[in-house]
Structures are given as C-alpha cells and as structure tokens.
C-alpha cells in the first residue's frame, strides 16, 4: 500500500486531451478564450512547477515522515492505516487542509507570492489550471497538509492530494456552464471557480474550495456566479506581460522592494499582511476595493433618485 501510483503523472495525457477538446469547442463557439503567448506561459509555468516540485519533494517527504513519527511516538496519535473508511476521511480532511491553505494564500502576502502565479492569466481555460508556482515550497504551502501526517499514512495523503489536484483541473473552463443543482450545492464546479478567478470587486477572495464547495458555504466565503456581470479574470493589477520569469517571480520582487523601502517597524507587515496592504495606505487590499465598490453601489441609486427628484 505504500507504493501507490503517481496519479497526477498518469493524468497528464488526459489533461492534454481535454485541453485540445476545449480549444476546439471554444474556437467553434467563436470565443477568444485562448491566446498563443498566454498558453505558452501557462504551460511552461506548469512544467517549471513540476520540476520545482520534484526538487523539493525529498525535503517534503522527510518532513512528512518526521511529523508521522512525532505523531506516533511523542503524541501517541492513532495511526489510521489503510482501512477502507480511512480513505474518504483522508480525502475530506485533505480537502479541508486545501481550503485553509488556499484561503491563507490569498490573505497572507508571503503565501500569495507563490500562489499569485496561478491567477496571473487573464484567461480562464484548462491551460490556466496548469499555470502553477515555481516557489510553492519556499512559500511554505506544504505546512497546511502537515497535520494530516500525524494520523494518516503519507502514501494515502499524497494519493488524495493528487486526486484533489486532478479534480481541480477540469473546473478551469468557460466551456462548461452550470451543472445540476445538487452537484453545484456540494462540489466545486467551473461556475464556482470562475468566481474565484474573477477580479470583479464582488468576486474578490471568494470560493477557495478545492473539491467540495461546502467549505466556502460553511465558512462564509461563498459567492454565486451571476449572469448579469461579465467576469474579468486575472489579477487586480494584471501583469500586462507574458514574460515567464516576471510571471513566476513578480510578487517576490515586489516584496523585496517593499522590504527595502519600508520603515523598520512596518517591514514584517509586508510579509504577513494581506496582498495590497501598505503602511501609508497608498495601495488597496481586496477588502478595501470591495468596500469602495459597495459604497459606490449604494451611492449610485441614491444619486439617481436625487437627480430624478430634482427633475420633477
């Protein structure tokens, strides 16, 4: 049981096939959902991410083993083994760990510096799913899964994490509309995840789920996709460039610049506060953008009513 297959590698031909089908469908529909340089950037970022992951895998396995042995020997935590009922439990808790990671990755700039790469395309297609970070290990994204190793076998966690990743591939598409209500209620879907990739104020920092959308519903971060609002994908400040290295490292460069320029008492905040935070309020966080949008939304109808009253 300790030698479970690397299902992500096995899924790669499926990824490519689905991408080709999506390309054909979008072209047939007259959509502009793909672009040459964007696709190349996304896929090369994906390849680089795989290489970076392979380089840091040894360290991660060592940490996982250390946590497992700490759990068993020092904490006396139960070692759940490979019984049939452990599998769904592991998958569910791994998905919860993903939710916590993902939410943190949007709320803490250090984590965001790794995750931002995945959001840096203005397109939303299956190649965007493969646009992944090269600095995930450096950004400490692995720490959120570590507690699972206290009780679950490492091989099972890696397998479940792989399944989670594969599930998330197919939801990165505009080719699929809404799915049956029962499915949309429980599972993360293309519709829910389009919201997550939107830069519209309404959609910022919403729908962090990996596989089960129930986490967002439970923790108050769920937002439904609307038909009356076109989604703009990407970042609040889109890169405006297809430079591969800039896409991979731009947020780290921004952190370095801010650390250099900030007064000493604020330096740490540029690492741990939310993206967009600044000590002099010269920038905007997503909460500030959303608040301004809310204020404008309530002011606009009032302005229209006042104008109508004046004209009477």
């Amino acid at each position, binding site marked *: 049981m300790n030698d479970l297959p690397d299902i992500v590698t096995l899924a*790669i031909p499926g990824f*490519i096939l689905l991408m080709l089908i999506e390309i054909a469908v979008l*072209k047939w529909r007259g959509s*502009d959902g793909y*672009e040459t340089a*964007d696709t190349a950037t996304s896929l090369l970022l994906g390849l680089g991410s795989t290489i970076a992951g392979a380089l840091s895998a040894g360290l991660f396995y060592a940490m996982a083993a250390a946590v497992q042995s700490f759990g068993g020997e020092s904490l006396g935590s139960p070692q759940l083994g490979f019984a049939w009922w452990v599998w769904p439990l592991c998958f569910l808790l791994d998905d919860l760990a993903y939710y916590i990671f993902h939410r943190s990755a949007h709320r803490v700039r250090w984590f965001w510096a790794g995750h931002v790469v995945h959001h840096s395309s203005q397109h939303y297609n299956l190649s965007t799913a493969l646009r992944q970070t090269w600095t995930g290990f450096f950004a400490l994204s692995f720490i959120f899964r570590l507690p699972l190793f206290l009780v679950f076998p490492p091989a099972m966690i890696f397998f479940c994490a792989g399944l989670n990743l594969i599930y998330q591939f197919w939801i990165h598409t505009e080719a699929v509309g809404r799915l049956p209500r029962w499915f949309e209620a429980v599972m993360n879907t293309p519709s829910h995840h389009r919201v997550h990739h939107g830069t519209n*104020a309404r959609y910022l920092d919403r729908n962090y789920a990996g596989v089960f959308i129930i986490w967002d519903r439970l923790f108050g971060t769920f937002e439904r996709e609307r038909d009356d609002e076109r989604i703009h994908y990407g970042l609040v400040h889109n890169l405006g460039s297809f430079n591969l290295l800039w896409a991979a490292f731009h947020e780290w460069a921004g952190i370095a610049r801010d650390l250099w320029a900030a007064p000493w008492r604020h330096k740490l905040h540029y690492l741990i506060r939310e993206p967009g935070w600044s000590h002099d309020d010269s920038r905007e966080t997503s909460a500030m953008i959303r608040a*301004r949008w809310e204020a*404008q939304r309530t002011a606009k109808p009032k302005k229209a009513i006042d104008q109508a009253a004046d004209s009477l």
Partner: protein
Amino acid sequence: MTIPTLLGSLAAIGIVVLIVRALRFQAKTLSEEQAMRYSEEMIAGFDAIDAGLCRNRHAALVLGDDGRVVLLKCTGNRYAARALTPPARCRCPEQGRLIVDSDERQFGHVELQLDNAALWQQRLGGAT
C-alpha cells in the same frame, strides 16, 4: 522527473501552443464605449466620462470623473488596465502621437495614435 518525461512535456507544450496559434484566437478591437466599460469593470469605483481610442483600436485612455486616467493596453487578446493619477509621465514626440509611461517596467509604456493627443497629454499632466 526523467529527461524523456521532460522532453515529452516540452513536445506536448509545443504542439498545444502551435495548435492555438494556428487557430488564431484574435483580440477584439475596442470601441470608445467598450474602453469606458472595461475601465469601469476593471478598476473598481472608476466612473468613466470620456475615452480616447488609439487609431489601431488596441489601446485607449479613459478619463474618470475623479481626474484619474485609465491606460488600456492590449496584451495578447485581452486588455490590461492601469489607473494613472495625474501628473503621469507622458510625451508627445509628434502631433497625434502620445507615449504614456505606466511607471512599471514590465507593463512598460504605451504608444497611442490619437486624434487629440495634446488634450490627453494635458489631462495626464494634471492641467485643467
């Protein structure tokens, strides 16, 4: 990751990219109305009141009611926006040609062929 896997991945990437290129997913050109709408949609709280469209319709400047100017630049077949607060760096090397600096190295400067370049230079310069 083995060398054959790496080469195979690179080949697969090349094939997908070539297919996308062959299918020519092209950028939609802008109208003034679209430029204003995109600016409002991409910059939360921005209220557009006027737009200046580059003659190739792949870039635009949009004036907001708060005096800010949104620079729209075509990136692939999408538009990226930057809200510039006057005074912003720009120059008019010849009549009808305006070069606007986003003040970000990677976003770069955008060159626009405008009917009223001098007016937009004035707006970006913060002059009334």
